[in-house]
């Protein structure tokens, strides 16, 4: 080995002050969503691009509190803070909905 790399030393820009409304943060968080939700509808998984902001927030909170079924979505939502959900809602609602 050519010498150990020190542990993480990148700045992590985090926390609500940065998060809300930060399009770069929303975009980064969205990269987890698009593994399954592409901008075109792909079968049973709905497209979320162009989705109404309030609707998005309400749905994610229902998954987070396990009032909506789907284990994948519950697990995704579990680690999202209110700020994370707001950043995602802002990001996806600003995208063009699928044709």
């Amino acid at each position, binding site marked *: 080995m050519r*010498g150990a*790399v020190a542990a993480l030393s990148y700045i992590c820009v985090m926390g609500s002050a940065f998060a809300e409304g930060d399009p770069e943060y929303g975009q980064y968080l969205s990269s987890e969503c698009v593994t399954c939700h592409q901008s*075109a509808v*792909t079968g049973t998984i709905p497209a979320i691009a162009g989705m109404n902001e309030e609707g998005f927030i309400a749905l994610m909170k229902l998954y987070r509190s396990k009032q909506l079924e789907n284990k994948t979505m519950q*697990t995704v939502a579990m*680690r999202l803070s209110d700020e994370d959900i707001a950043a995602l809602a802002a990001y996806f609602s600003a995208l063009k909905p699928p044709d």
Partner: protein
Amino acid sequence: MAIVDRRKFTTGLLGLGAVSAGLNLPAYAQGKKPKVVVIGGGAGGATAARYIAKDSKGAIDVTLIEPTRKYYTCFFSNLYLGGLRDYESIGHTYDTLASGHGVNVIHDWAVSVDGAAKTVELGSGAKVAYDRLVISPGIDMKYDSVPGYSVEGQDTMPHAWKSGTQVALLKSQVENMREGGTFVMVPPPNPFRCPPGPYERISMIAHVLSKKNPTAKIVVLDPKEKFSKQGLFEEGWQKHYPDMIEWIPASVSGGVKNINMDTMEIETDIDTFKADAASVVPAQKAGAICDRAGITDGDWCPIVPATMQSRADENIHVLGDASVASAMPKSGFSANSQAKVAAMAIRGALTGSKVFDPRFANTCWSLIDANDGVKVGANYKAGTDKIEVADKFISKTGEDEALRKETYEESESWYTAISADMFS
């Protein structure tokens, strides 16, 4: 030490004045267009190339080195085996990465890496320079881990663990088995690519045989004592293919002692099994280029969780199956997730873009019979030493048919979406 200095500069995002002394300035601070080279255009590499090119909007030069012109996914290759998908539906080209995102795609092998000079040598002899290198070459087989098996034997008893023509070969061997014949599956020992994969393969072969050759048998000679989603698979095998599948752990068989490729005989302590067709999946290790880059420790490549940087060379990021991702399974979903974390870290280091708290995720769907889908998944976080599980879930035994069908349909949607996330 130079390593530490450079990292401070890239991390601190200091004003240029503060780093004017630096020989260690990142490329962007020197006014040069930074270069990223990606070795391997699979789940990890294609995603990394696409995200770095797309999100840097031309500020980073991205070169992807991949020998094949069409990538056939391992994911869903079992559905092709089961007759539920056609072969071409799992093949993807690199055309849009090049035309839509400006990735410079070179169809060649990377044969060596010079970490000091920061260059990759190609099969053609050409050298490609990088500021950051991404290595995602997947796995290589340790053929001698199964006595009697060899690289020459792979067409007789295909491992079919790298997709492509081997899977087509295995499919025709299964379909041409004699009536009432025996199919033998030898799964690999841990750790290996796609933990539920061998058991989904068994399910899909049983699906084919139950229709075409219902008196055929499947014998599984497992080197392990337990396997992924075991309760779900065993319940499903009993339900859909009663008496067809016999799973024998090493504690019972004593493990495979020898394989005779000519007679198709597989010897264990309890019996010698004569196969009419077989799939032998040996133990695995990181793709050979990792050894040549000097980034392996044993069979795999240790990484720094938050950035997927190699522990041996901070300019190299290792993704997917080749990396030691601890709690994350070696899956396409994992490789895709790791690629996004690495892409963010690389853009941060090379262009000063924002770097957020890294998050990883994985879900592995498996199909037990047509419309009987199950899944296991988790969220992960970057610990200091390891990638750690945050929250996890798994399908339950006894779920109703409607939920299983929904889970299967979800997997089909996922396949379309992740393919687009890699190649569109």
